[in-house]
């Protein structure tokens, strides 16, 4: 019987396949730090979140420290309610400022955290006091144009 | 309930079978006793192979009853049918050997699938069966390396592996040289006597068949045309059997396929 030959080849095949799956899980994706269930959630409110998406990174000093878990609208204040899931090994002070930033000129948007000096740390479910909304390109441009128009009155005759 | 006699191995009562609306068998009554070898003959497409299919339970008749070893075959469920089939061997027209297994593994197949015998005992049994068909020396060959006659003999060894009580042969002589025909014929007879089987042979080969069977059933147009001893076949003046036995091109079985009148078709009318 050739059974042993099949067994060996199939075993090898499965081993290579599992290795490839492990490669995808650990090297291509990052299984280690990106468990969406772990960590704690904090809430931040913004006037405008621009193009922020669920799963966008939360960074502090350029290091990814969490992910955007959900985005909603507060029906009374008309503020955007963004839930951030922070990895359990990072802690931030109570007076941390969250701002929505863009990587590169047209890149994806992410939440930047800038820790303050408060000795009390943020816990699960806490709300960030200070936030800075996304910069909306159209608003910037119109602001710029208005101020230009105000600077140079009636240049033309 | 149909009556059943101990001496009857196979009993068909008023069996009708048709494919879609094309009738194949139309009221067949046939009884085969234990230990008998019978031949079923008839023109091509006359329902001979269909008859084997009905006995084996591969086909279900539209009406009538098929009793094999006392079991009403069309009414059996899959597991019961498989239970019965362990007692039925079948030799297919071209052997139907498993092309991915060698000769030994082909003959070992029924033992490995149907029994829990240890491998050494299977080896002994397989060599025994291969010896009986004279092909023990060919046990390591693949089916593709066998001649038609050898393949048929291996298939025969495989079919009788579990010592069936009924053997069905579908055209066992077709496409073989005269020597192989003789060998297969002798094996069929010898196995039938040695294992006390009941054999049903579907065949065109008159000469070889008449030498080994107890009875010949001639089918024509979905009915049993004649049921007679082999000696009678040689002497009968029945026109259909004469045409069949003497190989006459025209007779009760017409040379021409039915069509429009020749003259009017030629003239385009």
């Amino acid at each position, binding site marked *: 019987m050739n*059974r042993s030959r*099949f*067994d060996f*080849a*199939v075993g*090898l*095949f*499965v081993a*290579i*396949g*599992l*290795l*490839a*799956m492990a*490669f*995808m*899980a650990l*090297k*291509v*994706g*990052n*299984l280690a730090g*990106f468990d*969406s269930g772990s960590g704690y959630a904090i809430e931040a409110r913004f006037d405008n979140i621009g193009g922020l*998406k*669920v*799963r966008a*990174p939360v960074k502090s000093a350029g290091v*990814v420290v969490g992910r955007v878990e959900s985005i909603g609208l507060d029906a009374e204040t008309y503020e955007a309610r963004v839930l951030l899931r922070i990895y359990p090994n990072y802690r931030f002070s109570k007076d941390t400022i969250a701002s929505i930033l863009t990587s*590169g000129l*047209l*890149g994806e948007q992410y939440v930047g955290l800038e820790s303050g000096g408060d000795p009390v740390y943020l816990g699960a479910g806490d709300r960030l006091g200070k936030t800075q909304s996304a910069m909306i390109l159209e608003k910037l441009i119109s602001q710029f144009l208005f101020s230009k128009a105000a600077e140079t009155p009636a240049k033309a005759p | 309930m149909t009556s059943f006699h101990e001496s009857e191995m196979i009993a068909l009562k008023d069996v009708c079978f048709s494919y879609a609306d094309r009738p194949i068998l139309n009221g067949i009554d046939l009884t085969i006793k234990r230990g008998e070898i019978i031949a079923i003959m008839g023109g091509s497409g006359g329902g001979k192979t269909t008859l084997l299919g009905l006995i*084996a339970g*591969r086909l279900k008749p539209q009406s009538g009853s098929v009793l094999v070893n006392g079991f009403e075959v069309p009414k059996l469920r*899959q597991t019961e049918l*498989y*239970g019965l*089939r*362990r007692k*039925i*061997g*079948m030799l*297919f*027209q*071209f052997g*139907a*050997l*498993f*092309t991915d297994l060698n000769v030994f593994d082909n003959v070992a*197949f*029924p033992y490995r*699938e*149907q029994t829990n015998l240890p491998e050494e005992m299977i080896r002994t049994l397989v060599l025994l069966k291969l010896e009986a068909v004279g092909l023990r020396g060919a046990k390591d060959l693949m089916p593709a390396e066998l001649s038609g006659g050898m393949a048929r003999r291996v*298939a025969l060894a*495989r079919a009788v592996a579990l010592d069936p009580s009924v053997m069905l042969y579908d055209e066992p002589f077709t496409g073989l040289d005269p020597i192989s025909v003789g060998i297969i014929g002798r094996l069929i007879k010898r196995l039938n006597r040695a294992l006390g089987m009941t054999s049903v042979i579907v065949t065109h080969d008159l000469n070889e068949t008449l030498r080994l069977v107890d009875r010949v059933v001639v089918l024509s147009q979905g009915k049993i045309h004649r049921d007679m001893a082999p000696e009678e076949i040689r002497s009968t003046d029945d026109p259909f059997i004469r045409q069949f036995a003497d190989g006459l091109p025209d007779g009760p079985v017409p040379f021409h396929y039915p069509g429009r009148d020749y003259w009017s078709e030629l003239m385009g009318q």
Partner: protein
Amino acid sequence: MSAYFIRLISTLGHLVTSRIDRLGLVARFAGLLLVSLRIALGRLSLIFREVYFSGVRSLSIVAVSGLFVGMVLAVQGYEVLQRYGSAESLGVIVALSLVRELGPVVTALLFAGRASSAVTAEIGLMRATEQLAAMDMMAVDPISRVVAPRFLAAVFSMPFLAAIFSTAGVIGAWIIGVKLIGIDDGAFWSQMQANVDVRIDVLNGLVKSIVFGTSVGLISVFEGYFAAPTAEGIATATTRTVVISSLSVLLLDLLLTVMMFRGLS
């Protein structure tokens, strides 16, 4: 004129009814197959044999194709990305394309051409030469002995092959991007890791490939089992396997993609 219309309508009707007939046959066959899986799973050596012929023998073509596809993606992706100054994202683009789409889909297409067509031809020939009938006469159910192991082998092999395809592709992209073009090695991997989610991307890709394996496997054994027992019949069945498998993979991919990635952006 009206006779012409009647013929047109009835041709259309026949087209529909014959498809539905065939679907019914597929459903009945799938039912039989499902029932026989329990018996087939009891004999792993039979399945391993088919995994060897379908899966292991497809390994080299899948790995080499993956490598080339990854390399091409890297060249094309780099060409576009460097215009926007984000060549470091090359790893992300390539990995996401492979893991989400190209890995499962191209592997299934290759498998249909390389392995499933052979399975169809094999089963079709076994029917034509009465091997299936002989098995049935020996009280061995051909569906659990011949059909089910081949079907299971396809379902089993596909995720492994897809993972191997994607891995080879990422390595191919790495060779082109990092070794030849000179993108930063660290940026290549870290960007990839930051943007490829194990659950959403990798796991969903594997789920896709299992679904494709089921579909391609079922089609190949069905077409073989019901192939007309002639040379032409087997040729037709083999062609049908490749065509129908490929179309079903692409259609299922669309459905699965819509289902899986709908809520994400």
